[in-house]
């Protein structure tokens, strides 16, 4: 097969149809990645317009441009849009687009999941923007502190929009995180050992793992608050045994890692672009990876630095202050690694480099003010003032937007296949850079002079007038800069001349392909021998196009890509990916209607979309797989490998593992809430509310154990090829899980007070419901396996589905036991 024919054949397999049909059905990572990026930029523009409105209002004292009702929506939506609809999706888009290309593979591990995440993001973002247009946008600040955001003080729909809309978007973030993790760990080009991965992949891996652990606390907190608002379960109400501080803990348990989740991908861009601009290799690869690991962990021990003024004793503040100071070390390490790289190389002042210089100045300042804020006494003064506004924009714009702009100019030729229009980009840079510093540098002083954040106006005599006026002027200069950037990009897309391949002389694999990239990325997948494949073999791209790599054969219309051993990068198996489908958009729409039902208070109606999601999920899993064995397939002349359904450790299995890890952090956060209230609230749980329930609890526990064991039995029977006993065991497992659900509910009904009466009852009920939902999931998994065994999809060799079902069965069992232990502990202890 010659290169052109191979191109045609692979495009038929990997491409998406033209027009709306293609838009609705494409699951290709380049398509989805591009959409994420464009949408995120659009949200950035909206958030930016809100910022301009705020700056217009604050330009003069006593201004009557907008009132507090509008202003409160402006800053809440500005913050929420920038954090949830711009920063996170922007990096997700970049990751989706770039990762497979940098890892030498053809797509992400779960293409349909990327598409689902995309639609969830789009629909959730739309809900938020529509609420803004209708004037009922959230208005309690982007961290939604209770009780201000509770029903008593925000009776309208505003807070619900935030809680439901953001949770909806969050689903997409967790989906992306799992996808990114598994893709990096498993779906790489053969030979790419972990220490041969491009640094950006390490950054994204660490970021994704952090997301898996950090988002559940927020999802949980949002659910609890929404339940409190909708049904009166008093998790955060101090009059009924709750605590407003619980919200703050859960929010910042997410919120602080969140800022590193935003920063790390951008830092990864710096580590990728900077060495190319300096015509050298990065200094201290291993050190940087170690620093990333340290950052990932430490950043989970900082959250209380957002709560230094809530009255927590000084010793505890000391722990968090120390951790916050320490986290600066791995960041400093990276700064000096980059400086050393520049010293070792011959840096050129091309446009991406210019943005990187801007990044250096701004981010270093932001980091230093961050260390200042980590010092408890200083934070007592600076907290919630404009000093913090200055700090957070120095790190977010300096640490995220500037590197992303550098990355944008660096990779745009890859997206468009074109070179940039001269000069415009430099002008935009200077406007943004100068405008930014005028706007935000002054805010440090404004804050020290006592201006609190989130006030819609201020009196003349405070002495903030000039500072604010200058900040507003600067912000408009910056806005022009961003507009110029958008124009520049548009010109490049539509008018500019074509660029040559690999215009910057980069050494990572995304440049080993013609640009703009084709749907399948690589006509054949490379074998990786070192960290800079293109530096050692500049002709690599051509050789791959000629088919001198893995999987050069386009066969059976299957989307095939290689999966490797996690550490060694040795060939593991071939992944056969699903093709274009409407399932993701339909499932996202149904998921969205669930959130809409809740938003408008149609709680019973919400059960319909729940059933819909279950049915669609079933179908989602059902449409994959084969009823016969594929056996070993050829991957390269003389080499064969199994396909993913016939091996252990397929991406789907790993994806389930990480999903459950995320799920477990959700349970962990819930248990933290339980323990927190127990310790913090006085007379908790109130002795008169504690019931018994040991006996029914034992029934639930035993049937949970039985359910787990039976699922395991079904799995092993199907692996052994005995269909009949597998399906019998699966049926029995379903029965056991049904008993678990019934027993859990009767513990609640007979032994617990109504959930609205006290936070203790509310949180115990939540725990029981958590366990019941997981028992239901395990039940469905068992039912699925039963059906698949009967239909012949699961066999002694095709074991993937059975092992996934076993994971969920095990988890449900463990979760039920833990929940029962916690719920019954007060009864046992008293």
């Amino acid at each position: 097969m010659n290169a052109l024919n191979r191109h045609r054949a692979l495009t038929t397999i990997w491409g998406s149809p033209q027009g709306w049909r293609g838009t609705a059905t494409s699951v290709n990572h380049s398509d989805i990645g591009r959409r994420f990026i464009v949408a995120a930029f659009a949200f950035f523009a909206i958030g930016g317009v809100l910022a301009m409105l705020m700056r217009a209002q604050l330009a003069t004292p006593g201004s009557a441009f907008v009132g507090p009702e509008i202003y409160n929506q402006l800053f809440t939506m500005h913050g929420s849009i920038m954090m949830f609809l711009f920063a996170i999706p922007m990096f997700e888009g970049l990751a989706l687009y770039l990762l497979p290309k940098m890892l030498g593979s053809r797509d992400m591990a779960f293409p349909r999941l990327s598409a689902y995440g995309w639609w969830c993001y789009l629909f959730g973002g739309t809900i938020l923007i529509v609420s803004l247009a209708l004037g009922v946008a959230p208005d309690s600040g982007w961290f939604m502190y209770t009780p201000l955001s509770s029903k008593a003080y925000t009776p309208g729909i505003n807070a619900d929009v935030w809680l439901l809309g953001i949770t909806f978007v969050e689903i997409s973030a967790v989906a992306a995180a799992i996808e990114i993790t598994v893709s990096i760990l498993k779906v790489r080009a053969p030979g790419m050992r972990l220490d041969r991965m491009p640094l950006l992949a390490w950054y994204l891996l660490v970021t994704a793992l952090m997301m898996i652990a950090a988002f559940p606390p927020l999802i949980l907190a949002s659910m609890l608050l929404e339940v409190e608002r909708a049904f009166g379960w008093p998790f955060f109400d101090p009059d009924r045994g709750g605590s407003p501080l619980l919200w703050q803990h859960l929010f910042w348990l997410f919120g602080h890692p969140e800022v590193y989740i935003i920063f790390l991908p951008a830092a990864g861009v710096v580590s990728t672009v900077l060495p190319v601009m300096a015509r050298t290799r990065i200094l201290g690869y291993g050190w940087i990876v170690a620093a990333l690991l340290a950052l990932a962990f430490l950043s989970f021990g900082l959250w209380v630095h957002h709560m230094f003024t809530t009255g927590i004793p000084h010793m505890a503040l000391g722990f968090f202050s120390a951790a916050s100071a320490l986290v600066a070390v791995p960041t400093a390490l990276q700064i000096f690694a980059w400086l050393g790289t520049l010293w070792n190389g011959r840096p050129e002042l091309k446009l991406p480099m210019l943005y990187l210089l801007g990044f250096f100045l701004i981010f270093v300042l932001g980091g230093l003010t961050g260390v200042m804020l980590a010092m408890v006494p200083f934070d007592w003064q600076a907290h919630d003032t404009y000093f913090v506004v200055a700090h957070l924009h120095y790190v977010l714009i300096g640490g995220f937007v500037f590197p992303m702009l550098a990355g944008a100019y660096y990779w745009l030729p890859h997206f468009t296949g074109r070179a940039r229009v001269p000069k415009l980009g430099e002008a935009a840079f200077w406007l943004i850079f100068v405008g930014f510093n005028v706007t935000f540098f002054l805010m440090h002083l404004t804050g020290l002079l006592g201006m609190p954040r989130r006030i819609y106006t201020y009196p003349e005599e405070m002495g903030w007038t000039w500072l604010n006026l200058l900040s507003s002027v600067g912000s408009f200069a910056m806005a022009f800069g961003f507009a110029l950037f958008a124009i520049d990009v548009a010109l490049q897309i539509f008018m500019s001349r074509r660029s040559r391949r690999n215009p910057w002389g980069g050494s990572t694999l995304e440049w080993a392909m013609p640009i703009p990239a084709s749907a399948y990325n690589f006509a054949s997948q490379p074998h990786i021998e070192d960290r800079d494949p293109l530096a050692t073999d500049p002709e690599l791209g051509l050789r791959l196009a000629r088919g001198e790599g893995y999987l050069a054969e386009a066969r059976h219309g299957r989307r095939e890509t290689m999966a490797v051993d996690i550490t060694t990068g040795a060939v593991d198996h071939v992944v056969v990916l699903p093709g274009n489908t409407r399932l993701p958009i339909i499932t996202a729409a149904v998921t969205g209607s669930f959130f809409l039902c809740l938003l408008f208070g149609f709680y019973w109606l919400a059960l319909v979309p729940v059933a819909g999601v279950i049915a669609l999920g079933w179908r989602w899993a059902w449409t994959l797989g084969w009823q016969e064995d594929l056996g070993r397939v050829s991957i390269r002349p003389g080499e064969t490998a199994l396909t993913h359904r016939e091996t252990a450790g397929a991406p789907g299995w790993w994806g389930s593992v990480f999903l459950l890890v995320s799920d477990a952090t959700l349970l962990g956060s819930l248990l933290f809430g339980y323990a927190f209230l127990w310790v913090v609230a006085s007379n908790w749980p109130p002795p008169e509310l504690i019931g018994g329930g040991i006996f029914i609890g034992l029934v639930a526990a035993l049937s949970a154990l039985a359910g787990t064991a039976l699922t395991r039995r079904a799995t092993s029977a199907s692996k052994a090829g005995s269909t009949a006993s597998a399906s019998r065991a699966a049926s029995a497992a379903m029965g056991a899980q049904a008993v678990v659900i019934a027993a859990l509910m009767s513990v609640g009904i007979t032994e617990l007070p109504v959930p609205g009466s006290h936070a203790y009852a509310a949180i115990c009920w939540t725990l029981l419901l958590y366990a019941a939902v997981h028992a239901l999931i395990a039940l469905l998994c068992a039912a699925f396996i039963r059906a698949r065994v009967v239909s012949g999809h699961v066999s002694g060799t095709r074991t993937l589905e059975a092992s996934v079902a076993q994971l969920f069965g095990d988890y449900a069992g463990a979760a039920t036991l833990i929940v029962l232990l916690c719920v019954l502990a007060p009864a046992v202890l008293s």
Partner: protein
Amino acid sequence: MLYRLRVTITALAVGGCSGPLSTLDTAGPAAASIATLWWAMLAGAAVLTFLVMTLLALAFVRRPWRRAGGTSLWIGWLGVAMPTTILIALLGFALTLGERIIARPVPGVVTVEATGHQWYWDFRQPGANGAIETRDVLHIPAGRPVDVRIFSADVIHSFWVPRLAGKMDAIPGHLNVLRIEADWPGEFEGRSAEFSGAGYAGHRFRVIAHDEADWAAFQLGGRP
């Protein structure tokens, strides 16, 4: 000449840093030590920024004396050892400073109660003839430590008198204590520093610090 310059700069700095809510125009021991911490950190930050920017600029000049360095110089010394040392020193300093500010039991403390409401503050303190209640104005004696016991009646607020001390939140269901002290008699601007809804911008109060005679009069119930 040098003296003139110094005087002008000081005047500028002081002028630029004054204001009714300025954290740098201090009038109490807690605020003063925090301001000292700030100026020290500012100086340190300036030095570090200068260092990084110089190294960055030098990367672009091509001179024979400029030699490339290895990981031990860039990462070991500059990236790890230097920041760790600085941070641990700073941390120790800040923690000991914090110990001096927190409301540890000391003799002679005056205790008052502050309750945040949307959008006013109620203050309550013992007087010679029963409790004295005031709204949006807090009376304290100058030169004596005062413990403010902070409550909230509705949502979260934060009690903040920047010229005297840092802030402390008023959280429903929790009691927090903040130590404040005014060095001299006078009026000090205070405000809530936690967003609390539509009336937040105007959620302000005043602290009046009395000399001994006025304080005695105040406690007798007479408004001085």
